[in-house]
């Protein structure tokens, strides 16, 4: 018997690991590596991108402050992910339908929800989900939105709505759930106008990306569904925007779904509820990511062009934070969520048992 295998599995494995370089416009030192794309942005565009990232960072800082004061409910820190989040969402149009996960609150606000509503959602108040935005509420089951995004996309296609897509986010952990594959596979099979975005921030709570999958990239996971996918430098907002915009153009031209993996990093904890990142990662590991900071990267470019200054940024941060303080005050004034209302919104036609419960709680609540 011959010992030699008829298939060179090691060679196949090696081929899988031979990945193209993630797409970049600015490198880690703010050097332009794709001049043509860079030149397509006006000075105003560049300033606008910077403002959005400063806004997201300020939102994060102020929300963490509120959290320390005990004024927030569930909150997933976003610091470090500004380029990935703002870059992709700014490439979307208002008519697009967003299916966010719990870390995608800044995108949800950009897409039409108010900060007040976001805060109410964080506190677990139903009024936080009544926004006018074309969006689902933030998804907790990390793969589930991928299935639904295929459905929303199919609906858009069946309604023959042009220039409209469904777009959804999950993280590196989310790609391990079966639903993320099912969703991409359905979208591929039905050729729906859906954009799947994986924000690979390195960790699913404490589980590192390397333990999540043996796949050399998460973008590869779309290949099995027949969907084109790409890795992009998630700390470079110009690259994130450019790739998301190109994906949207490709999708709205009737070419079916796309998947984007952004390579980003979560500086802080998974959530404000208290996981300690020091337990699962070292300072040496985190430091280089801070050096790739998306705000620093674009700020250097703007400063070189004389378009940005510390004073300007400080003033903006002040303004933003003041608006977040107004928002939380407004959230404080929301009427209490009552059990009778919870019962009323469970079914359109309450069940006989619920009718009795509603009566019981209404009587109690009127005495409060």
């Amino acid at each position, binding site marked *: 018997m011959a010992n030699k295998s008829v298939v060179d599995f090691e060679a196949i494995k090696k081929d899988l690991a031979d990945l193209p370089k993630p797409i970049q416009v600015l490198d880690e030192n703010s050097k332009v590596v794709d001049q043509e794309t860079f030149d397509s942005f006006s000075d105003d565009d560049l300033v606008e991108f910077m403002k959005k990232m400063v806004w997201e960072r300020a939102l994060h800082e102020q929300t963490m402050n509120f959290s320390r004061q005990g004024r927030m409910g569930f909150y997933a820190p976003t610091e470090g992910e500004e380029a990935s989040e703002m870059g992709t969402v700014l490439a979307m149009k208002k008519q697009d*339908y967003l299916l966010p996960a719990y870390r995608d609150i800044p995108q949800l606000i950009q897409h039409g929800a108010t900060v007040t509503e976001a805060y109410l959602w964080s506190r677990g108040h*139903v*009024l936080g*989900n*009544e926004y006018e935005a074309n969006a*689902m*509420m933030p998804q907790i*089951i990390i793969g*589930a939105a*991928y*299935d*639904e*995004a*295929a*459905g*929303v*996309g*199919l*609906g*858009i296609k*069946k*309604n023959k709505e042009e220039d409209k897509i*469904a777009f959804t986010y999950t993280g590196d952990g989310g790609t391990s759930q*079966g*639903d993320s594959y*099912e*969703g991409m*596979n*359905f979208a591929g*099979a039905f050729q729906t106008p859906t954009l799947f975005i994986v924000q690979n921030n390195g960790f699913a709570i404490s589980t590192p990306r390397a333990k999540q999958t043996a796949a050399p990239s998460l973008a590869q996971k779309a290949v099995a569904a027949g969907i084109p996918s790409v890795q992009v430098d998630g700390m470079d907002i110009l690259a994130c925007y450019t790739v998301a915009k190109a994906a949207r153009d490709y999708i709205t031209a009737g070419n079916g779904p796309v998947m984007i993996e952004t390579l980003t990093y979560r500086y802080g904890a998974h959530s404000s509820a208290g996981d300690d990142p020091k337990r699962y990662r070292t300072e040496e590991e985190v430091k280089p990511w801070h050096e790739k900071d998306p705000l620093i990267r674009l700020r250097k470019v703007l400063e070189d062009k004389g378009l940005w200054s510390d004073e300007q940024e400080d003033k903006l941060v002040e303004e933003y934070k003041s608006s977040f303080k107004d928002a939380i005050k407004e959230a404080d004034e929301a009427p209490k969520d009552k059990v009778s209302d*919870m019962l009323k*919104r*469970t*079914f*359109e*036609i309450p*069940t*006989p*048992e*619920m009718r009795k419960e509603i009566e019981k709680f209404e009587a109690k609540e009127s005495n409060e």
Partner: protein
Amino acid sequence: MSKKTYIAAITDALDICLEDDPKTLIFGEDVGKNGGVFRTTQGLQDKYGEDRVFDTPLAESGILGLATGLGVQGFRPIPEIQFMGFSFEAIDQIVGQAARMRFRFNGKQTSPMTIRTPYGGGTHTAEMHADNLENFFTGVPGLRVVMPSNPYDAKGLLISSIENNDPVLFMENLKLYRSMKDDIPDGKYTVPLDKANVVQEGTDLTIVAYGAEVNEAKKAAEKLAENNVSVEIIDLRTVSPIDTDTIFKSLEKTHKVVIVQEAQKMAGVGAQVASAISEDAILSLDAPIGRVAAPNSVYPFAQGEDYWIPGADEIVEKANEILNY
């Protein structure tokens, strides 16, 4: 009027709803060209096109997620889970997503879907094909569970379910598909959700049943009638929520009850009925509550089914025990 099997009545209801509302869509595994593995959707793709009646990849969570997403875009989906045991794969999409849409969004977004799925034993199918899982799903707020026992109800309840603006789990009994025929109206009619049916009136004992066990209850009642026992049979039709008023009213007359279900005894529909009676109607009774249900084993392999599923004899036995208390 025409004589129709349970399955033909369901096809008829689907046809009427597709005709009535262009936003209704049927999809699932093999529902298109093949007309479903039981031919429930036979002819519907030819009539309404692949845009309205279509096959999906083989993935139950994907099918239900697709339904939720389509609902958001204004459609009224009628997804099919090929066999109820396959719904294990879709628990999050049914329970964690669809059933709570109205609640999450304060009514701004809802999930008006009807999930059709065959269940039930006695046809010697492979494992996971016969499991009757209503005991799981009746504990889910925001989800209705409907289980018709005959062709007339199957058509009328299915139309009501599809027109309802909340998600409905519509469970079709596999054994009844072709073993039963009724004279049913040809056009559109509805049978109300959340309302039990008094199948036959009686004065000595109430039997509460649903699904295929309603027929076993009828057989049992015939045998009991030979000994001059007058049985009232209540068919729940909707098992979540349960129409307790109809049950309580009957108990005021009969003072005795036997609750019958095909599913395992633990928790679930029969336990809920017994609990409701204990809580609110115990003084109507002059004997303990009788229960007939399948044993609490895993759903058996095909060869064991016939001994496992409760039949008319067991109902008669339990009824006599209660009557002689």
